[in-house]
């Protein structure tokens, strides 16, 4: 395989569930995880005679996202019906947007290995989600749950500008950070808030000619890892397939594949019958939307700082490396928490260390964001300040942080209770140091004598002092006194 030169061409379709209170066309709660068929009304179950009414917030969320993606906002847009029969789609048509999406022609910049690349956005539009079919454990039948039916779904389609599995993953992460920052979606991938569908093919160079492989679309990928793996798999599969059959874009057909996460392979999907003929036409039950510039300006005015810009600022101003900046900024609330704590007069360096250190560790362990740990900016700031002021040492800070998660006490109170306050008082420390020196004459001697053992002995004596003080001694002060006493 390695002797072939090829380029990878990837376009992404991403479906993102919007974090509105109610569904797109009815007032049922837009909420995940409730009992089956509990968030259902005549409108979303498609009872005879019902009519849809558009959720304004869903529209504004989509416009907000489109603006953040530098898209053009359509002045006139409408709703279309997309027809196909499926048991999770009670009307057997989906309300969507066909030829006049609410926005088009955008850009999102990503950074892969330090290189910046602009990915063109073809369109952003709104549509309603379908319900859920459950098959597991049932022999011969499927169950239908309509709770998700009619949830507002934003579809983002890129141009085929992505050229590797990694780029696709980075794009997905960037987009996820963006929608979270915008507050339009929780983008919780486990709950299916964000579903990715790459279209992949290759341009293979051989003997001075270029061959394009047939496009495959991998459906419904639920994580960025799956996206990256599925694309990598597809690249290899398409090369092998082309070598074996010689089938190209011109001679083959586009196919749809599913991703088997356990096996790590894509599987050809049986085409839905006549899936290609959706018979789009304007929904007569919904009137068009005409977007006034004033409305767009209003939404634009309220856009928060976008992740790309914030990340650069976090690196420049706070000294985070690229990866840490990305992790922090991915979630707007966490980044806000950081900045809020900072304004309380906290030392930047210590706060950074805490965020990329124990705070992110605790969040990761719980599979939530740092903000979701629920610790206030005040308490976070206090802890960092205590380190900065030498009241506690970094090790103690980690211990206190852990306690802060399970009680509401201030870090100061915890430190006192746990006896983690540093002793910086010279006379108190001198007493301990004198005792240690008296008990370890050999080590004191080695520490005085330049040579191989000197460094090690100093460290040993320091450790003894720390142990004797039960970790409360300020190591810096101990070092100073010890140095003076040894006479170095």
């Amino acid at each position, binding site marked *: 395989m390695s002797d072939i030169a090829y380029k990878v061409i990837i376009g992404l379709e991403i479906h993102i569930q919007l974090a509105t209170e109610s569904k797109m066309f009815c007032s049922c709660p837009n909420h995940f995880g409730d009992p089956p068929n509990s968030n259902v009304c005549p409108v979303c179950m498609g009872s*005879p*005679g019902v*009519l849809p009414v558009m959720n304004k917030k869903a529209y504004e969320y989509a416009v907000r996202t489109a603006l953040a993606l530098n898209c053009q906002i359509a002045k006139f847009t409408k709703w279309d019906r997309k027809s196909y029969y499926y048991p999770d789609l009670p*009307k057997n048509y989906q309300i969507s947007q066909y030829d006049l999406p609410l926005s088009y022609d955008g850009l999102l910049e990503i950074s892969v290995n330090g290189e910046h690349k602009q990915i063109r956005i073809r369109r952003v539009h709104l549509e309603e989600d379908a319900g859920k079919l459950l098959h597991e454990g049932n022999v011969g039948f499927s169950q239908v749950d309509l709770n998700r039916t009619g949830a507002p779904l934003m579809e983002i389609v890129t141009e085929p500008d992505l050229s590797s599995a990694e780029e696709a993953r980075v794009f997905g992460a960037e987009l996820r950070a963006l929608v979270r920052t915008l507050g339009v979606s929780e983008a919780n991938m486990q709950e299916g808030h964000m579903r990715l569908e790459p279209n992949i093919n290759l341009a293979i160079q051989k003997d001075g000619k270029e061959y394009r492989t047939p496009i495959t679309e991998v459906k419904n990928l639920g994580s960025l890892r799956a996206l990256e793996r599925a694309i990598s798999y597809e690249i290899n599969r398409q090369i092998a397939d082309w070598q074996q059959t010689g089938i190209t874009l011109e001679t083959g057909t586009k196919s749809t594949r599913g991703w088997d996460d356990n096996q790590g392979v894509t599987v050809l999907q049986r085409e839905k*019958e006549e899936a290609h*003929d959706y*018979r789009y*036409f304007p929904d007569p*039950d919904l009137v068009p939307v005409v977007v006034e510039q004033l409305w767009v300006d209003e939404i634009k005015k309220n856009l928060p700082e976008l992740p790309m810009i914030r990340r650069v600022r976090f690196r420049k101003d706070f000294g985070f490396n690229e990866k840490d900046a990305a992790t922090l900024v991915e979630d707007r609330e966490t980044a806000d928490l950081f900045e809020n704590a900072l304004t309380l007069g906290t030392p930047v360096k210590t706060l950074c260390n805490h965020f990329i250190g124990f705070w992110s560790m605790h969040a990761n362990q719980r599979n939530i964001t740092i903000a979701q740990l629920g610790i206030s900016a005040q308490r976070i700031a206090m802890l960092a300040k205590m380190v900065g002021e030498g009241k506690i040492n970094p090790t103690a800070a980690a211990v206190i942080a852990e306690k802060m998660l399970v009680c509401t006490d201030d870090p100061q109170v915890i430190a006192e209770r746990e006896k983690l306050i540093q002793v910086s008082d010279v006379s108190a420390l001198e007493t301990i140091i004198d005792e240690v020196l008296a008990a370890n004459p050999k080590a004191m001697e080695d520490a005085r004598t330049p040579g191989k053992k000197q460094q090690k002995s100093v460290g040993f004596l320091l450790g003894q002092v720390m142990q004797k003080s039960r970790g409360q001694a300020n190591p810096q002060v101990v070092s100073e006194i010890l140095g003076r006493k040894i006479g170095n």
Partner: protein
Amino acid sequence: MDRFLKCRECLQTKKMKNVIEDILKMTATELVKDIKTGKLTARQVVEFYLRQIERCDREMGAFISILDDHARTDADKIDSRIAAGENPGPLSGLPIAIKDNMCTDFAPTTCASKILIDYRPPYNAHVVEQLQKAGAIVIGKTNLDEFAMGSSTENSGIKITRNPWAPDRVPGGSSGGSGVAVAARMAPVSLGSDTGGSIRLPAAFCGICGLKPTYGRVSRYGLVAYGSSLDQIGPFGCDARDIALVLNTIAGYDHRDSTSVPLEHAADFTAAMEKPIAGLKIGIVKEYHAQGGIDPEITQAIEQAIKVFEQSGAKIIDVDLPHTDYAVACYYLVATAEASSNLARYDGVHYGYRTPNPTDYIDVYSSSRAEGFGDEVKRRIMLGTYVLSAGYYDAYYLKALKVRTLIKQDFDKVFEKVDVICAPVAPTPAFKIGEKVNDPLTMYLSDIFTISANLAGIPALAIPCGFTNNNLPIGLQLLGKHFDEETLLRTAWDYQKKTDFHRQIPEMVK
């Protein structure tokens, strides 16, 4: 059994006999007045109409559900409220029959289709809510062409409905049951829906009044959709005042229907009726009369009516609607395209009929729909699917939407010159049962004069204007500007004050 005894008992006294004869001739407006003033009880009125249904409907077949218990309970409630000095609303105690494509949570809503035969809606249509709030009593649900697709009510999946003026003839459609209910005095007023003439054609064939309001005037929430951009709910009644009375209640903005038009002032249609029509400009459409195939008796009756308008001081002006000849073609593309999508939901999965032994889930769809829908519905779904399908959209559907624009523009131009257009409702009077049933295209052409109003979204009122030599009613149609139902009703009422066609009752009903 018990019910009929009670019914007889209630109507048996000699005094009541007179009341009965009175009720038969009374309009809804008069009934409400008498109920409110205590001259009649709602219960007496309901019993009268239930008896009338009992007497006539076996032959007529106007009703799919007769809601006798429901109506009696509601009537008693109204009566006790009146006894307590309350005003139960502008339609206090008025029985009303409702076409069985409007949702009621207290009675099945079948659309006269096997696919919804036992379907019980989980909610009430907006119009039903409004009627009940106004004190009206839903007395039954009426027959229709399945899913309102037809012009004769012969396409009902349940039964045919007969014309009370000539039982071997159709009542028109698709709201044939609601038309017959009023014509045979089985209800004083009723509701129908009109997508291409489905209120006006039965009104004309049955010798009563029927209004298709402006698109957006009456909320469609709870009306089972056929052609969503064309459908409107409207009333049937004996005269223009009764139409206005019911329209007052059902018209108005509803936030649940995105196509419901918010208007600054709530109209009072009954109040606007008495104004004279002197100086009113009435347009006569050249193209309608150039059309071959209009029954000469109808032409003559329309000409007579125009003379009446002239005597009232109206000015008659010739106008052009040059795209008239394309309306039927345009309509059958738009309506069927929308219908093919609107009726996709009847699939045997979430509600309605499911084939008993499906081979797989696809077969749940294909067989349930094949067994549940009648031929005309299938035909329209097929036609609509075809014109929206890949490769045909532009040639058929999009073309039709553009022609629709031309038809709308025709009316816009004409209404710069006139206030009202006067036209026949149909080229022929009621035709024989079975006459056109095997020839869909000929059947479609029955709607040639009614369809344009739906395409343009304008209001149109059918009123009786004469009888043929063999005593079949003839209908006149008044078409108006958007949201100008008032002028239509005023024109009709002026005419009805000078004529008595609207007071004729079929012999068999008396």
